[in-house]
């Protein structure tokens, strides 16, 4: 039995949890990369989408960028604290990051409700009735991209909460880093979504 354990010696110096999360992140890159690629292709095809992009709120988008970048920073601080086994600091920094996720979602829902009240929805029937069918496709992309990203924000928050609950008891401290890496990936996708959807008008 003891001998079996020695089989698990890694041949490359990288813990298997981190390697697993890297493969997951690469897979997610491909999903979002494909989606963003499709968006860029259509965006270049239809310059008239600039009129629609003018309706997105740059202010809220910028706020959300600041929130996500800051929470990314607090997550690495939590990871640093995990290296020192400083349980209190881990709890503090992770809670701040989860709070950042909540702030992001609140901002996002304010933005969504404004847009929906202006008649921009997934299929935007109002725009279609006006004959602006191409413009309605912009909103399909907008809601798909931000909605999928929002789903990842929620998943990242759940992962961080899980890591937080375990880290409070001093268990599985490496999960602080792993959930943090997932959170950085969410941040990374937003870095690309922000100029694409909010700045390019």
């Amino acid at each position: 039995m003891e001998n079996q354990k020695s089989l698990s010696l890694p041949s490359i110096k990288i813990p298997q949890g981190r390697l697993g999360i890297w493969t997951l992140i690469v897979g997610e890159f491909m999903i979002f990369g494909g989606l963003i690629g499709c968006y860029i292709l259509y965006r270049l095809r239809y310059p008239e989408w600039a009129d629609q992009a003018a309706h997105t709120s740059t202010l809220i988008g910028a706020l959300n960028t600041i929130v996500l970048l800051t929470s990314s920073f607090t997550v690495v601080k939590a990871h640093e604290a995990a290296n020192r086994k400083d349980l209190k600091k881990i709890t503090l920094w992770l809670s701040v990051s989860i709070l950042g996720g909540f702030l992001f979602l609140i901002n996002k829902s304010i933005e969504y409700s404004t847009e929906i009240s202006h008649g921009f929805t997934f299929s935007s029937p109002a725009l279609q009735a006006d004959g602006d069918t191409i413009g309605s496709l912009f909103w399909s992309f907008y809601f798909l991209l931000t909605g999928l990203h929002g789903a990842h924000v929620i998943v990242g928050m759940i992962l961080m909460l899980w890591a937080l609950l375990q880290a409070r008891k001093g268990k599985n401290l490496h999960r602080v880093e792993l959930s943090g890496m997932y959170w950085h990936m969410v941040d990374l996708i937003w870095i690309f979504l922000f100029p694409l959807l909010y700045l390019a008008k």
Partner: protein
Amino acid sequence: MDSQHVAQDENVKFPDPATDYHGHPNYLKILILLFAFFAASLLIGNFTLTSITVAVIFATAFYKAVLVIKNFMHLRYEPIIVWIGVLAAVFCLIAFFFGIYPDITATHLDVVPR
């Protein structure tokens, strides 16, 4: 094999973060850098969009992404196999984009509303 060895192997499987220490860059510096680039791209976004400003905006976005991957996600401390994985993803996406580009973007489509 004695029990001490077993305990060691467990550590390898689920490494103790204290022993798995791979150095930390100055995170605050990177955060400030990120904010600076972000502010710059916001500023440029307020001008009229030309191909140059768009290029600048996306170059900053790309550089921000590189900063996050390298420092926050610690790619700079990972072995080469992870680098290969990330770069392969970028390669596949580029192949994907330029394989489709002539069919979607460069093709004119007459849209007839239903």
